[in-house]
């Protein structure tokens, strides 16, 4: 099986130490995490990890099961890039003089959908969001004009097929688990969205 990019989405309780517990699941198996984002989710009090790794599907499936085994993890999914919509945010710092002098810079930035978030006498900071290839391309374009600093955020992603976690969370909150149980819901649809 070939390695490819997978995005792992993990719904968790907001607990200190859980980040480490999730991180060591990867490091124990010597798997490099390409990006990791933690954020609130659509459900109040539930956190959402978005983790990007490059691995085979078999490895990712096993990893996701190990992640779900953590007591404070409610649910974990893994998806290929075609199953999600995702964005990364990038910031670029360039010399204001350069931009003021060279009109093409402004045109380029517009072309890449970048916008200025801070303008100072000596530097200007642009921001753009998109896929990695897009934010990477803008680096290449800006380099000749003296790119002072660059930083990119972790990936955030939404699963296309998901109908949200809200309904499912109600079941978790119930004292007694309901009869319709999430663990097995997607058992026969592993191609689409993996879930245990």
């Amino acid at each position, binding site marked *: 099986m070939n390695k490819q990019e997978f995005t792992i989405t993990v719904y968790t309780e907001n607990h*200190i*130490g859980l980040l*480490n517990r999730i991180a*060591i699941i990867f490091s124990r198996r010597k798997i490099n995490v390409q990006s990791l984002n933690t954020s609130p989710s659509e459900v109040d009090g539930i956190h959402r990890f978005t983790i990007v790794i490059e691995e085979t599907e078999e490895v990712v499936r*096993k990893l996701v099961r190990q992640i*779900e*085994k953590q007591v404070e993890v409610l649910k974990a999914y893994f998806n290929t890039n075609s199953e999600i919509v995702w964005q990364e945010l990038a910031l670029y710092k360039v010399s204001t003089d350069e931009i003021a002098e060279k009109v093409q810079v402004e045109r380029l930035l517009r072309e890449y959908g970048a916008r200025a978030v801070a303008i100072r006498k000596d530097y200007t900071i642009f921001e753009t969001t998109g896929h990695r290839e897009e934010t990477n391309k803008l680096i290449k374009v800006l380099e000749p004009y003296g790119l002072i600093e660059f930083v990119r955020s972790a990936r955030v992603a939404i699963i296309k097929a998901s109908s949200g976690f809200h309904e499912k969370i109600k079941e*978790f909150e119930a004292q007694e688990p309901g009869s319709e149980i999430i663990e097995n819901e997607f*058992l026969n649809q592993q191609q689409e969205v993996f879930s245990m």
Partner: protein
Amino acid sequence: METAAIGIEEKQAETKTAVQLTGSQAVLEAFIAEGVDTIFGYPGGAIMPIYDALYDYNDKLKHVLVRHEQGGIHAAQGYARASGKAGIVFATSGPGATNLVTGLADAMIDSTPLVCITGQVFAHLLGTDAFQETDVINITAPVTKWNYQVTDAVEIPAVLAKAFYIAKSGRPGPVLIDITKNAQLQKFDYEGYRHCDHIRSYRPKPIIRKEYIDEAAALINAAEKPFVIFGQGVILGKAEKEFKTFIEKSGIPAAWTILGLSALPTEHPLNMGMLGMHGNYGPNVLTNECDVLVAVGMRFDDRVTGRLDKYARQAKIIHLDIDPSEIDKNVKADVGVWGDCKETLPLLTKRIEQKVYPQWVEKFRQYSREEEQQVIYDELNPKGDEMTMGEVLRVLNELTGGDAVIVTDVGQHQMVACRYAKFNETRSNITSGGLGTMGFALPAAIGAKFGAPHRPVVAVIGDGGVQMTIQELGTIMQTELNVKILILNNQFLGMVRQWQQLFHDKRYSFVDIASPDYVTVASGYGIAGRKVSERAGLKDALETMLSHNGAYLLEVMVGKENNVFPMVPQGCSVSEIRLK
């Protein structure tokens, strides 16, 4: 301010208001509510408030002062394995906590329920490299099922309730609660203890899907050469009866992993013996001949499967496990039956036909006869002057009749004991399986005796392992515990020596280990003992050991360069098992 150490419940009932308790008292109240009777521990600076509170609970909670925290946690493991309850450990911060790590890793891989309480420096000192401060939560994260640091006493009742629930439910495991000294000392309004029975992010048991049970039953009903392999899941699920009913109705021969040992009586006609590297001949070879392999509560460890790409490739595989992450982890299952085997086995039994497989079972017996002729007979009845480990086990079986709890360490003696010890009852075999922790047996036997006080407990230990935790003789001395210690001394680190002989051209690199005079060491601790070097004295010595009123250490000198066979060499398939 009242010191509400005793009679908390009554006081609450009287006043109908919360009583003031310290965090330390709340910990002990939680233990009482959870039915804890025995704690294995070692005091120190950061856990002193809990020990101070314990002073007043002496009539309700028995504390066993061990000689090293590793001994404490192995004792708690032995207690848990023998009793089926959670083992409890106390240790202080820093070195006390780090000394638990081996035991935590052992309990994690062998699914043993433990609740460990470690003291921690005051919350305001966290991260300052304070005296005896160490980052216990992060050090133990990979080797605990759950861990949590308490810095506010108010949290203690709920956290302890969660700890017990997590440790014991689903696939059990060790839980560690790190409590800062200020939280132990802090007084708060104690509103009673509520047991935890639900955590929204935690599903201890996957929901059983009937269609997979149906699929499994259909495979079993159509099978001509089915084979059951079982592990500790049967014992942890308290499903020994359900398992026995299942194999008796299905008529399927069954073999065990070393942690599954004793779930089915040794003498059961469908008990075909041990799987894996030093397992029995038939179960290993026939794994690669069966048409349906039913795995119950086991995790296809590499010591069981040998070379994976040549493991049971011809068979349809049914895997019953409570932990979904085990299914398809090492061996791909054709039918994965998720669930507690206490529930899935009866469902499966209901759907299968009553059958017998006389020819197939006879095949196991043929292999068994061949193994008996080529390996077992000589191991149990050696002709030479040197005693063998198997011979010692044979005599021990004759004397105990299979009623003893046998606690083993790690190495050759462990394999021999697991192969030859006879068991009538479940929870009788206690050993370090997954982690292979030398030094496990002596402290674990202490715990086992506390967990099963009315059963004879015999620790079978090699001359290497016993020297790793020999300090626990002090614990035996002080508790006046009736534990039998049987040292099988081959004057070598035998298992490593065996591998060096077979795979490293007999280059015996640092396996030649000297021993103290164990009988003298024991007598220093006030423990009776004897050393036997001649066969003539063996039976009498074992009889004396078993009938002695109190702890007894028996050292038996066995052949120096005996090997454990059969053996599946590393990197070989189970069907390539060697008899010599």
